[in-house]
C-alpha cells in the first residue's frame, strides 16, 4: 500500500466517522432538544421512542470516531482532549445524562421522576450539541499551541463569540434535523405539532446559517482559503446552499423524507467544507501557525495506518449493512408497545 497517501485517507475517514455521528446522533440530540416543547406525558414518550431503538448505535459513531482519531492521529487526540479538558468533561456529563435519562424515564410513573429525567434528557441534548459546535468553532478559528504541540490556552479562552455562534448554529441544525425526523416517525396530533416545530426550527437554522456564513467570511478567512485557491470546490458550497434551500421546499410539499435527506446533505456538505479548508491541518495553531498539527506530524506510523485501513475496509461495510437492516426493521411510525421506553 505504499502508493496510497494513507495520511490523507485517514483524514477523510475520521471526517466521515464524525459526519456519520453528526447525521445520526444529530437527530437524537435534536429530538432531545425539542423534548420539553410538549408537556403531555404520552407525547413525550412517543417522541422518545422515535429514537428509542437507534440512539445507542448512533452514539457509537462518536466512540468509533474518537477511537479512529486516537489511532490515526494520536497527537491530535492527546492535544485536543487534554486542552479542552473541562469542555470534554461537560460534554461527557451531558451525554451520560442524555443516555441514562432515556433508559430511566419511563421506568417509574411518578411525576417528579419523569420530570427529572425529561429535564436531564433535554438539557443533556442541548448542552452536547452546543459543546460539539463550540469545539468545531474553535478548530475553525485555530487554537494556541506551543512548540510541543500542547494546548497553550484556557477553558474560558474557548468560549469566544465565534465558537459560541457555531455552537448555537449546531443546536439549530440538530433541532431542525430532529424535528423533521420526528415528523417522519409520528402521526396524528403530535405529528401536526412537530410540523409546526420543524418549520420554526428550519427558520431558526436558516438565520443562523446565514449569520455564520457572513461572520466566517469576514472574520475567519482561512475557512474560505481552499475555495479561493481551487474554485471548483465552490461546487460543494453550492451543493450546501442548494441542500439548505431544498429543506423548506420539500417540507412544504409534504415530502418529509426528502426534506430529511436534504438535511443530511446539509450536514455532510458543511463538514466537507470544514474539512477541505482545514486540510492538511487537523488542529490549526493560532497565533503560531508553524505549531499546527497536520496529517504528517500528528499521524501514527504508516504500518498502523495501513492496518487500520484494512480493519476499516472489513468493518465499515458490515456495519453499514446491518445498520441499514436494523433501520429497515424499525421503519414507519412509532407504535407504543410494552417493550417501549
Amino acid at each position: 500500500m505504499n502508493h496510497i497517501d494513507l495520511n490523507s485517507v485517514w483524514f477523510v475517514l475520521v471526517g466521515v466517522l464524525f459526519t456519520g455521528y453528526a447525521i445520526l446522533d444529530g437527530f437524537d440530540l435534536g429530538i432531545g432538544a425539542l423534548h420539553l416543547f410538549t408537556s403531555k406525558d404520552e407525547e413525550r414518550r412517543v417522541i422518545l421512542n422515535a429514537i428509542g431503538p437507534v440512539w445507542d448505535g448512533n452514539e457509537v459513531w462518536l466512540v468509533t470516531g474518537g477511537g479512529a482519531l486516537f489511532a490515526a492521529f494520536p497527537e491530535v487526540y492527546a492535544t485536543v482532549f487534554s486542552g479542552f479538558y473541562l469542555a470534554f468533561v461537560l460534554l461527557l456529563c451531558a451525554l451520560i445524562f442524555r443516555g441514562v435519562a432515556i433508559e430511566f424515564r419511563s421506568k417509574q410513573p411518578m411525576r417528579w421522576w419523569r420530570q427529572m429525567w425529561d429535564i436531564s434528557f433535554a438539557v443533556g441534548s442541548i448542552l452536547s450539541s452546543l459543546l460539539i459546535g463550540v469545539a468545531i468553532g474553535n478548530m475553525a478559528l485555530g487554537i494556541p499551541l506551543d512548540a510541543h504541540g500542547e494546548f497553550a490556552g484556557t477553558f474560558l479562552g474557548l468560549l469566544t463569540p465565534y465558537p459560541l455562534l457555531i455552537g448555537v448554529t449546531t443546536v439549530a441544525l440538530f433541532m431542525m434535523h430532529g424535528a423533521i425526523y420526528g415528523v417522519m416517525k409520528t402521526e396524528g396530533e403530535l405529528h401536526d405539532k412537530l410540523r409546526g416545530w420543524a418549520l420554526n426550527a428550519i427558520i431558526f437554522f436558516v438565520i443562523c446559517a446565514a449569520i455564520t456564513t457572513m461572520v466566517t467570511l469576514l472574520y475567519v478567512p482561512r475557512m474560505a482559503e481552499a475555495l479561493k485557491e481551487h474554485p471548483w470546490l465552490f461546487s460543494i458550497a453550492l451543493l450546501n446552499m442548494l441542500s439548505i434551500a431544498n429543506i423548506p421546499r420539500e417540507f412544504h410539499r409534504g415530502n418529509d423524507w426528502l426534506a430529511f435527506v436534504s438535511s443530511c446533505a446539509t450536514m455532510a456538505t458543511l463538514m466537507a467544507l470544514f474539512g477541505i479548508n482545514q486540510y492538511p491541518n487537523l488542529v490549526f495553531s493560532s497565533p503560531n501557525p508553524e505549531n499546527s498539527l497536520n496529517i504528517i506530524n500528528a499521524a501514527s506510523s504508516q504500518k498502523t495506518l495501513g492496518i487500520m485501513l484494512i480493519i476499516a475496509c472489513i468493518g465499515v461495510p458490515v456495519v453499514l449493512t446491518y445498520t441499514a437492516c436494523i433501520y429497515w426493521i424499525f421503519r414507519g411510525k412509532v407504535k407504543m408497545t410494552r417493550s417501549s421506553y
Partner: protein
Amino acid sequence: MDVLTLSRIQFGLTIGFHYIYPPLSIGIGVMLVIMEAAWLKTGKDIYHQMAKFWTGVFALTFALGVATGIVMEFEFGTNWAAYSRFVGDIFGSALAAEGIFAFFLESGFLAVLLFGWDKVSRKVHFFATCMVCLGAHFSAVWIIVANSFMQTPRGYHIVDSGMRSRAEVTDFWAMVGAPWVSATIRNPSTIDRLFHTVCGAWCTGAFLVVSVSAYYLLKKKHEDFARRSLQIGLIVALIATVLQAITGDSSARGVAKNQPAKLAAFEGLYNTMSNAPLVLVGYVDNSNPLQPHAVGIEVPGLLSFMTYHDFHATVTGLEAFPPQDRPPVAPCFLFFHGMVGIGFTLLAVAVLGVFYGWRKKLSQTRWLLWILVFSVLGPEIANQLGWFAAEVGRQPWIVYGLLRTPEGLSKVVEANTVLTSLILFTFIYFLLFAVFIYVLNHKIQHGPNPDDLVPHGKLALPDTIIPKK
C-alpha cells in the same frame, strides 16, 4: 493533592464504576442466548417469559455501561495525554477496532433484542441476541488486547527519543497476542487474561440470575419461572467458576514469568527462594518499608509448586527489584488474595447449589437459598479486586517497563481542574448507582410479566419453531 494522585483516583473511580456493568452485560448476554435457545428448541413459552424478563435487566446494565464507558475512551486523552502520544500507534488501533467490531454490533442488534420482540420472527430475534452477546465478547477481546499491551508489551519498537519517543507497531498480531503467532514473539498474557476476564463475566451474569431466582423461591413467588432460571443459572455458574479457577491458575503462572515483581507483590514474597511458601491468609508486614513481606498461615513450597509445578523451584521475590520498581505490596496482596478467596467460595457455592438442585432439595433448603441470594455480590467484588490487583500490580509503570505512570500524565492539566471533574464524576456516579439499584430492585420486585407467557406479533407464529425430528 497533586495532579498525579487526583488523575489516578479519577481513573480508578471511573473505570471501577464502569466495570460494574460490562461483566453483567456479557454474562446476562450469555444467559439470554441460552434462554432463547431453550425457547426455540422446546417451544415452551416460559423461556420466552424468562428471556423477556432478563432482557429488561440487560437493557438497564447496558445503558449504564454505555453511559460510563464513553468516559473511559475520552479520559486517556484528557488526563493521560503523554501516555496517549506514547502508545497511540498501538492502543488507539485496539480501541478503534473495538468500536468497529464490537460496539456497532452490540448496540445495533440491541435495538432488535429490546424492541424487536413483535417485529421479527423467533429465529431473527435469536440471531440478534447472539450478535449482541458476540459484540459484548468482542469488546472484551479488544479492551484486553489494549490493556495487555500495558502489561506485557510485544510486537513494537520505540522510535525517536526523549519527549517525542513513542511505541510503534512492528507486528500487529504479535502485539495483539493472537494464538497463531509464535509464542516467542506474541504478547504472552492476552489469551490468559481474556479467558480469565470473560469467565469472570459469565460468573457475574450466572450468579445474578441465581440470586434473583433464589429470592423468588424464598418469597414463594414466580416459582416455576424461578426454578427453571435457577437451574440454568447454577449450571452456568458451576462451569464458569471451574473455568475461572483454571484460567486464574494459568494467568498467575503467566504473571510469575512475565511480571515477576507483580507476582511477588501479590504473594507478599520478599526473599527470592526455592520451596517458596504460599501465605493462605495473612497480611503484609510493612514495619520495614524496604522489606515488605506477608505473614500469616502459610503452606511451605506451595507457591513454588503453583507457579512452576515443582516444590523446589525458585520464585523471584521483591528483593530482586529496586524499591522504585516495586508495586505497592499491601494492596496487591489484599486485592489478589481477596479475589482468589471469593473465587473459591463461589466455586463451593455453585457445587452446593448444583448438588442440592440435582437431589431436588434446593427449594426447601432455605439457608442455601439465602446464600445464593447474596452470591451475586461475590463475582462483582472479585471482578473489581482482580482488576485492582492487575493494575496496581503493574505500578510503577503505565506501560510495563517502558513508561512510568507519572510520565503518562497530561502536561497542560492542573490539579484544580482534575479536582473539579473528580467531584463532578463522583457526584454523578453515586447518583447513577442509587438510581440503578432502585430501578433494578423495582424490576426484581415486579418480577416476570405474566403477559409474556403469550408471545405477540411475528413471534407468535408457530412455523418458526424448529420441527422435532
